[in-house]
């Protein structure tokens, strides 16, 4: 059974092209620019409700989704913008959704916590902690029952590990060797509560000892390590080897939501600054330079491209029609 290969030797990411690598960097910038835009829209009053940003965690979605096929399934959380964007959902329609327009992915009914796009395998972001994990396992269950080779990945946080339903589906995934990847973004906090204050065992990947499949721990701020681990897990799953839990160490350098300054209470400014310095965009930019794939100006150009994509999406979204009240009850049933 394939295992997550030791870093350094024969890594799946070794065969990524220069364009792939630049693509990862671009994808991370798109996410960052996208979220900056969301914050602007929120401040301007154009975006309602709370906003859970993912600053500092851009490597996860960029690396993980690159390892997935279009027909693979994925679920994510309220903090899942990066995943549905990297999975291929139209960014314009996502942005339209997030500001509640009729041309949004859910016609404005879902909002940012509920983005769906079955065509790209996106089976929903979710507002309930761990609430969407069973959906992904169910997608894997469908693959298993049908005997096809698609897989499912669910991205969730460290805090989600303490929900009962997680235990139930991990047990079934292990029991039936379902083709699913549990991608746990361990950012050390659940809202304002630290991992140590909420789990008897803080090494998340060790908790799968209860379910009979493998858990691995990776540097979740390195998109290539993410890509490698997810690729290995996906290959194993496609080959019938069952699930893997990936504990991806990362850090949310912003607040839990837009009104949380992110430090002062539960975290020190120093801790946040330390992680900011290790943030995926900075590190991966340096990697691209080191590998001589990009110079500073190339990096800048990618950033600007990303900004332009997001700006265009914003324009599209703001021009989108307001949903008509006549359609209020559309979609209660299929």
């Amino acid at each position, binding site marked *: 059974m394939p295992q997550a290969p030791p870093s350094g030797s024969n890594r799946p990411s070794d065969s990524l092209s220069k364009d792939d690598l630049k693509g990862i960097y671009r994808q991370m910038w798109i996410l960052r620019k996208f979220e900056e835009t969301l914050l602007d829209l929120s401040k301007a009053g154009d975006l309602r409700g709370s906003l859970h940003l993912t600053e500092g965690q851009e490597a996860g979605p960029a690396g993980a989704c690159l390892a997935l096929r279009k027909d693979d*399934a994925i*679920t994510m959380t309220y903090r899942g913008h990066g995943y549905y964007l990297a999975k291929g959902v139209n960014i314009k329609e996502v942005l339209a959704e997030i500001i509640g327009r009729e041309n*949004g*992915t*859910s*016609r*404005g*009914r*879902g909002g940012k916590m*509920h983005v*769906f*796009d*079955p065509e790209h395998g996106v*089976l*929903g972001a*979710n*507002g*309930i902690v761990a*609430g*969407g*994990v*069973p*959906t*992904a*396992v*169910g*997608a*894997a*269950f*469908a*693959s298993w*029952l*049908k005997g096809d080779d698609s897989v*499912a990945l669910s991205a969730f946080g460290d805090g989600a590990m303490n929900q*009962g*339903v997680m*235990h*139930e*589906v991990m*047990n*079934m995934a292990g*029991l039936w060797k379902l083709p699913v990847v549990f991608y746990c973004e361990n950012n050390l906090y659940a809202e304002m509560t630290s991992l140590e204050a909420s789990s008897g065992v803080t090494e998340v990947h060790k908790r799968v000892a209860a379910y009979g499949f493998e858990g691995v721990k990776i540097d979740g701020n390195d998109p290539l390590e993410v890509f490698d681990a997810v690729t290995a897990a996906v290959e194993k799953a496609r080959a019938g080897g069952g699930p893997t839990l990936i504990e991806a160490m990362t850090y949310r350098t912003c607040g839990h939501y837009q009104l949380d300054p992110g430090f002062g209470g539960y975290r020190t400014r120093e801790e946040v600054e330390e992680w900011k310095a290790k943030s995926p965009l900075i590190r991966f930019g340096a990697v691209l330079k080191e590998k001589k794939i990009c110079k500073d100006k190339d990096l800048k150009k990618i950033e600007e491209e990303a900004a332009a994509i997001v700006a265009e999406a914003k324009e599209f979204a703001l021009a989108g029609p307001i949903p008509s009240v006549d359609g209020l009850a*559309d*979609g*209660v*049933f*299929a």
Partner: protein
Amino acid sequence: MSEMTYSDAVKDAIRMELRRDPDVVMFGEDIAHHGGMMQVTKGLLDEFGDKRMIDTPISESGFMGMGIGAALRGLRPVVDLMFFDFALVAMDQIQNQLAKTIYMSGGKVKVPLTIRTQGGGWKGAAAQHSQMLEALFVHVPGLKVVTSSTPADAKGLLQASIQDDSPVLFIEHKQLYGVKGEVPEGDHIVPLGKADVKREGSDVTIFSYSYCVHLALEAAEKLADQGVSAEVVDLRTLNPLDFDTVAASVSKTHRAMVVHDSYARCGIGADLAAQIQEKLFDELDAPILRVTGGDVSVPFAGELENALLPNVERIVATANELVS
């Protein structure tokens, strides 16, 4: 047509659907190898194999949620909950996820999942194994809620439920499994969302569903002896509700009552009474009365349980109160 029990009719519906559509799969606790605690699914494993009939661990939240994922990926799962009371264990997955997925997707996805379960008392099963909880699922929008009182309806409505592209909660009743009746052979569809007048009458309408329809019919018989002509309407689908049939009956009898064995407050009887008086105020010659399972947990002792749950006498007395 052939005569069969309610239990066999349910099995027949599941079998027809498993045959009709390879995407139909069923899972739940002890349903495959054992054939279900009520023996309803006995034999289906042999015909369809263990990738269509799947025994699960005791993980109601987990497998309910997996049903959603499976439905979104093209399967048509029938998820078995051994007792209706256990729906509460899976409530987030049922009400925050399953019931809202279509709406939250802006109508983009289909979620063809049928939950099949059974509830009801009179068995000495006490507070955690006797509940009929349909009102909880009518309250939170997004599930079709279906009951049936006869074997034929059970078959036809369950086939229709499994074929539906929205999530459906299909509720059976402990007291019904042994009930016999004529059932059409082969495919049989009773459309969702249609009530059925099970007995015509002119003085008073008794609205009911599931097992209590039988109590209502018995009461109607007694009432007939006393010179009172009672119409018995089986609501069948509780959501969406067939208010047209309700209205037609009330407009005829001008007196209505509701009978169910679930809790009274915020129950189906309350809902129906509220709608009827709202829309048909001038048609009513008397208040809409209710015979329900009260507002008490189901007690264990037989004398208490029987006193709490509806019976023919209380239905007759209530109908008499209405027509007097």
